[in-house]
């Protein structure tokens, strides 16, 4: 019998039509969730974070048959056991917010595995609709799926669809509408999986022990199941709710059956097996698909590396041929023109005010805007590689190497692209699922020598070292990378206590990129950069500008110079005078600022003219020069990087830790290099 054509349960009332209906979208990773989310909501969506978490929260709305629906995109998760923040967020939302409908997206081509999440969902008290996505891929792979049979077996509505071609969207909306109305749901009768037969008694035992003590709104049987699965959050919750003796009794049972997790999971797969035997036939199995053929190259230890290197080369080429000129254009025609405009517009105003607007504020806005071309390219490329399915392969190829530093294979691409600019490197860490590896990647990203730092090195190294400049520059890059690796090992061993990030990751099927999904992602990420990081960049830029311009308008007598003099004793450990210290401080707005500041402080006029180089070379010995270059390389990053570190870690504590760490590391390295060079007679 078709669930959907059963007699209506009750008619929709006016009051119900006016209230918005809450729909949750959930699915395992790589099932096309964003595509469907974008299809349904279009531009009616906004992106934020889940409260207190660094997990992205997408919410949008759409109207269907004059009813407004609020659609919440839950994080992609393989299960609902508290392995990660994503899983906790997803299940807490369903249990606490009680969405009117839960749309569970399933990959028809990997039906057996992707129904695992559904097996968990049907045990929760919210009506589920299974959206059977990627029907086209399933057909190509040789599966024949009968949605009606699956529907009858599951006891919940099943809607076949191919989101990339917008097929099945209308049917999905109609089904959501019916379920939300409570219509036809006399027969909404999910048949949740049961724990494997040999553990059914244990489950009952636990249920009896916790009977009446489970806090609202958690379903009792579900809590018992989660206890047996060893779920940390639920275990802690029940430990708090039960008296010591009661908990002791529960704990004894759990300890005697610490293999129960496998029984619970097996029970779910047995249930899935029954569904699949009923609804799926696979007449031609075992043929080699496109994915297998591509993976022979993409995941090969040698060819895979070569392909990755090629892709990285292409990204850098794109950044320099498209991004850099765009950056210049923005700098000259937008920021420059705005500055001019402000100066002419403020002719009568006091000089300090004109400077504040033209140099401080517009300069700050410019500092932020010029990041955009690079960021857009980066987001587009990362989005495309992720959407195609290549990102997982790159991670696979690089995992062994990255693990040495306590990182994940997925850390490689963002970190490597940090050679262009650290900002996208930090933002790119989002692709890493493991929270710890993600945090470590963010903390280490500022140690990658970015283009701006290399510009400074490229200017200063020839000034100090003449023909040995190339050697020194490469030495500095090597230094930064060695420090990065050592810091990774150190942070991993101490703060994360050497817990190794386990490597287990799905390699999704390759498919053609969905430009709409990628476009939306680029748009949202860029917007959120301007919105969140932009504010901080602007404020800090204005403050540092004010420090360097006040009270007199010259850097030499500015507050910044005073601060530089204050820190002179630290600088002297490396042979710095206050001017080098001020140059370092000024590089906080943008790394290139060091050179301009040195130019002003040494009265060399135009820094690029060459006068500065000679002055510097005659003013400092090689040991100080080496130390200065090293500190410049490892020093706290520019404000834009700090802003995104704050944005992505969601915590000032980690941001300050990162700054403190880099400060200590850079100064230690600087002092060590100075004395070593000094002792070597340089």
């Amino acid at each position: 019998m078709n669930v959907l054509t059963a007699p209506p349960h009750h008619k929709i009332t006016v009051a119900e039509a006016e209230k918005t209906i809450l729909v949750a979208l959930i699915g395992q990773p790589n099932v096309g969730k964003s595509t469907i989310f974008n299809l349904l909501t279009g531009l009616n969506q906004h992106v934020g974070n889940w409260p207190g978490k660094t997990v992205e929260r997408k919410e949008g709305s759409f109207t269907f048959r004059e009813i407004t629906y609020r659609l919440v995109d839950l994080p992609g998760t393989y299960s609902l056991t508290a392995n990660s923040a994503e899983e906790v967020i997803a299940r807490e939302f369903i249990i606490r917010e009680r969405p009117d409908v839960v749309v569970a997206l399933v990959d028809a081509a990997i039906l057996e595995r992707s129904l695992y999440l559904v097996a968990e969902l049907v045990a929760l008290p919210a009506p589920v609709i299974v959206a059977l996505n990627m029907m086209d891929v399933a057909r190509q792979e040789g599966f024949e799926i009968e949605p009606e049979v699956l529907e009858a077996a599951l006891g919940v509505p099943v809607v076949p669809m191919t989101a990339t071609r917008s097929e099945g969207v209308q049917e999905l909306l109609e089904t959501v509408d019916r379920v939300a109305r409570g219509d036809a749901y006399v027969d909404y009768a999910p048949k949740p999986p049961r724990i494997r037969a040999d553990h059914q008694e244990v489950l009952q035992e636990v249920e009896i022990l916790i009977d009446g003590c489970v806090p609202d709104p958690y379903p009792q049987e579900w809590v018992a199941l989660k206890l047996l699965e060893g779920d940390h959050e639920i275990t802690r919750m029940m430990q708090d709710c039960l008296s010591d003796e009661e908990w002791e009794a529960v704990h004894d049972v759990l300890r005697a059956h610490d293999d129960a997790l496998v029984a619970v999971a097996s029970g779910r797969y047995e249930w899935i097996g029954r569904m699949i035997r009923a609804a799926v036939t696979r007449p031609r199995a075992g043929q080699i698909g496109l994915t297998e053929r591509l993976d022979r190259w993409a995941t090969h230890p040698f060819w895979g590396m070569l392909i990755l290197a090629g892709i990285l080369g292409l990204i850098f080429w794109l950044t320099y041929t498209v991004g850099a000129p765009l950056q210049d254009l923005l700098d000259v025609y937008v920021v420059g023109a705005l500055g001019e405009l402000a100066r002419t517009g403020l002719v009568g105003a006091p000089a300090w005010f004109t400077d504040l607007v033209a140099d401080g504020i517009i300069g700050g806005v410019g500092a932020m805007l010029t990041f955009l071309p690079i960021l857009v390219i980066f987001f587009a490329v990362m989005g495309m590689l992720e959407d195609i399915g290549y990102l997982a392969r790159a991670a696979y190829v690089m995992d062994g190497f990255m693990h040495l530093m306590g990182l994940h294979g997925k850390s490689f691409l963002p970190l490597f692209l940090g050679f262009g600019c650290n900002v996208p490197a930090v933002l790119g860490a989002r692709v890493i699922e493991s929270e710890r590896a993600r945090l470590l990647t963010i903390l280490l990203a500022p140690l990658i020598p970015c283009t701006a730092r290399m510009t400074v090195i490229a200017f200063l190294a020839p000034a100090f070292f003449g023909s040995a400049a190339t050697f020194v520059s490469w030495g500095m890059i090597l230094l930064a990378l060695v420090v990065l690796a050592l810091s990774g090992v150190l942070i991993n061993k101490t703060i994360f206590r050497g817990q190794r990030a386990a490597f287990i990751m799905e390699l999704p099927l390759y498919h053609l990129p969905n430009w709409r999904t990628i476009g939306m992602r680029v748009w949202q990420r860029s917007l959120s950069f301007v919105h969140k990081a932009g504010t901080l960049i602007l404020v800090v830029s204005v403050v540092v500008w004010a420090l360097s311009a006040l009270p007199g308008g010259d850097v030499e007598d500015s507050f910044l110079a005073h601060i530089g003099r204050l820190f002179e004793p630290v600088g002297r450990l490396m042979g710095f005078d206050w001017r080098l210290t001020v140059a370092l401080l000024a590089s906080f707005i943008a790394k290139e600022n060091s050179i301009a500041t040195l130019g002003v402080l040494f009265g060399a006029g135009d820094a690029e003219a060459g006068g500065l180089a000679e002055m510097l070379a005659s003013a400092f010995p090689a040991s100080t020069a080496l130390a200065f270059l090293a500190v410049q390389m490892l020093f706290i990053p520019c404000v834009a990087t700090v802003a995104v570190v704050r944005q992505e870690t969601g915590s000032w504590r980690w941001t300050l830790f990162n700054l403190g760490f880099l400060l200590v590391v850079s100064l230690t390295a600087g002092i060590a290099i100075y004395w070593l060079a000094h002792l070597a007679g340089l």
Partner: protein
Amino acid sequence: MRSRNRSRAHKAALSPGSNDKVPLSTLHTGEHGVVVELANGRCMLGRMASLGFTPGAEVTILQNFGRGPLIARVRGARVALGRGEAGRVYVRRSI
């Protein structure tokens, strides 16, 4: 080619007791097995189960170069596993 020969030799050597459980990491590219035991820590066990690894699951090795991570097909999905993780999944070879 050579690895295929070696795998045959391996199988021959084990043939009397081919019901023995072996770590997944010892299976060669193209070989199949059925999971019999997961010896991972509890937290890892949950992740592995949600990705398809439970006792009774059929596994096919899609890539194993003898070192570094390997790729297995389990329950219709391709999953990459670290060598350490794969060493704690015990399987029974099936032909």
